């Protein structure tokens, strides 16, 4: 059953991050990275400009390394699909402090808005459920998004939300592209010395 999609990506990410506390955020390349940066730069953000398919696994390694902090991965449907095996790998590890948000516009936004698998019926929330995520849902409105976000401070994960968003493409908002800088400032923010 299809529902009317009203959530806009920038507003969704802003809502997710406005009271983020000391949450660590990993964001997938392309629009998700722009959305997270547009919501406000933060030393605890790890922006991806490449490594497509790697966002969930970076989040997993970080969540296992930092069990007392909450980790949120914010990525797109295309990026999640490329690393779909990570749904199984994350579920097998059961990191309680990991939340995954898939901003699903059912298209590859960065490359000309070609339809992605989710526009052909692939249901990422059901896949996550089948893998064994403790909570997995598809979200169509801001109230449900807010309710999901309230859970992301509890260690009851891993949890996944597929957030259906309108397919408009807001202007790019570009964070620093220097991966060494982004890595080092996150490590320093956590108290780890640069090498």
């Amino acid at each position, binding site marked *: 059953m299809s529902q009317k999609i009203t959530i806009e990506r920038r507003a969704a990410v802003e809502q997710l991050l406005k009271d983020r506390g000391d949450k660590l955020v990993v964001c997938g390349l392309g629009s998700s990275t722009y959305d997270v940066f547009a919501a406000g730069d933060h030393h605890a953000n790890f922006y991806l400009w490449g490594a497509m398919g*790697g966002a969930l696994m970076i989040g997993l390694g970080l969540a*296992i390394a930092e069990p007392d902090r909450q980790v949120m991965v914010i990525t797109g449907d295309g990026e999640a699909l490329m*690393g779909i*095996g990570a749904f199984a790998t994350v579920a097998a590890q059961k990191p309680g402090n990991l939340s995954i948000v898939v901003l699903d516009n059912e298209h590859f936004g960065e490359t000309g808005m070609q339809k992605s698998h989710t526009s052909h019926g692939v249901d990422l929330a059901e896949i996550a459920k089948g893998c064994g995520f403790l909570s997995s849902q598809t979200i169509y409105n801001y109230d449900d998004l807010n309710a999901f976000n309230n859970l992301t401070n509890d260690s009851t994960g891993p949890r996944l939300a597929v957030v259906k968003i309108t397919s408009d493409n807001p202007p790019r908002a570009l964070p620093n592209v220097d991966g060494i800088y982004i*890595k080092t400032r996150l*490590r320093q923010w956590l108290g780890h010395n640069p090498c």
Partner: protein
Amino acid sequence: MAEPAPHSWEDDIFDALKKAGVSQIPYVPDAGHSHLIRRVHSDPDMTPIVLTTEEEGIASSCGAWLGGKKSVLLMQSSGVGNCVNMLSLVTNCNFPFVTIVSMRGEYGEFNSWQVPMARATPTSFEMMGIEVMRCNSPDEVGPTVDSALYAAFASEQRIAILLSQRLIGRKDW
């Protein structure tokens, strides 16, 4: 516990991992790593992460380092090609990286399907900026792993250690 087995080169790898404080071990299994994987699973200070494909372990290792932890990826040579694109994350961000690769398809191999990726293994790493070290005999393993871990985690270097099939032994069919 069963009768203690003699200390092997696989135990040398485990000892080096412990000494370096490595705590996350993502892996795609291989018979050549099976003893090591069992030891990792039985160590309460290590988190084994079973993967669906090798490149996942590259990304998780980078995440571990962001959080101040050390991770080493285990795989067999057949999976090295899967890693090529994700190695751009390691190289571009200058993440420390160590993978220990058991070689198939290079010495008395019955299964010829293993041969092409075995031949391409060193080149695949080198073309992505990863240094390749090789162990041919048991006594080389411990010191090689130890030195690679030191270089990687003391100064963010990137190293793939290949365990020769001569070392691991032919697979009997």
